[in-house]
């Protein structure tokens, strides 16, 4: 007998553990709200239901933010290294793109926030 009764139980428990870990590690919550800040102040809070775009002015110039159903990104930014632009589309609650030189940030929020507060 290669498999005994308990072995099947162990295999099932192992499968359950794998599924549980997958949900825990990858099942991040999809965000439904985008919060745009400039110099620390919230300038716009909008839902991720339809396509929109915003232009936010900072010390270096204008940051363009693009919103599509379920996702948002920084489309263009005057900062030198373009880190927030290279982050691409944000979908998960708690994700944020920070354009530090231009003091603009884009944050995604869900129904339940993953963090109480984030300090940059």
């Amino acid at each position, binding site marked *: 007998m290669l*498999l005994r009764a*308990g072995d099947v139980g*162990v295999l099932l428990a*192992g499968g359950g553990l*794998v599924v549980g870990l997958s949900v825990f590690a990858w099942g991040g919550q999809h965000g439904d709200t985008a919060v745009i800040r400039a110099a620390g102040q919230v300038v716009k809070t909008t839902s991720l239901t339809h396509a929109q775009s915003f232009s936010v002015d900072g010390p270096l110039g204008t940051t363009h933010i693009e919103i599509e159903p379920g996702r948002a990104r920084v489309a263009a930014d005057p900062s030198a290294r373009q880190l927030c632009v290279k982050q691409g589309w944000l979908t998960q609650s708690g994700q944020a793109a920070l354009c530090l030189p231009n003091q603009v940030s884009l944050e995604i929020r869900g129904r339940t926030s993953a963090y109480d507060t984030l300090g940059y």
Partner: protein
Amino acid sequence: MTRSAIELPVSADDRRIARLAALAIGLTLAEAAIPSPVPGVKPGLANIVILLVLLQYGWRAAAWVSALRVLGGGLLLGSLFAPGFWLSTAGALASLAVLALARHLPSRYFGPVSLSVVAAFGHIGGQLALAGWWLLPSAAVITLLPVFAAAALIFGAVNGVIVARLLAGPASSGRQSASCIPPSTP
């Protein structure tokens, strides 16, 4: 002629452990040649030997073989005392600790497959605990957790079935030879 002042008596147990450890090291080396998409996801073929030793000669012998395998494998692969070696050590220790408990499960219901799966999870758990605490103290380990757990489940089950077949012996499985593990009377 200088005669050695120290003579270490070598018992039959020692020879057997050395032979089995050599087998486990051989499997470790063979396995290192297999390419893997994710570093750390390996079949863990040496665990077949560890498990056979555990079931035939007890936990102490298994611990010896496991320790010698980690050390010998580290020496031969050139990773002695490198991060990979410590990950391997942590995995082997955790695996042995789990096996020490799991081998007391009633063998009527829990066969080699259970032990193998549990040991595989112990192995990956020990490795990831050390990696998360020491090498990658960030969310990166958590993201990879399901991949490693799935690999542990699959390879643990396969190795367990192999152990079960080897233990069943050539009588019941025909073309398989279990000659790599000699009977307990050397």
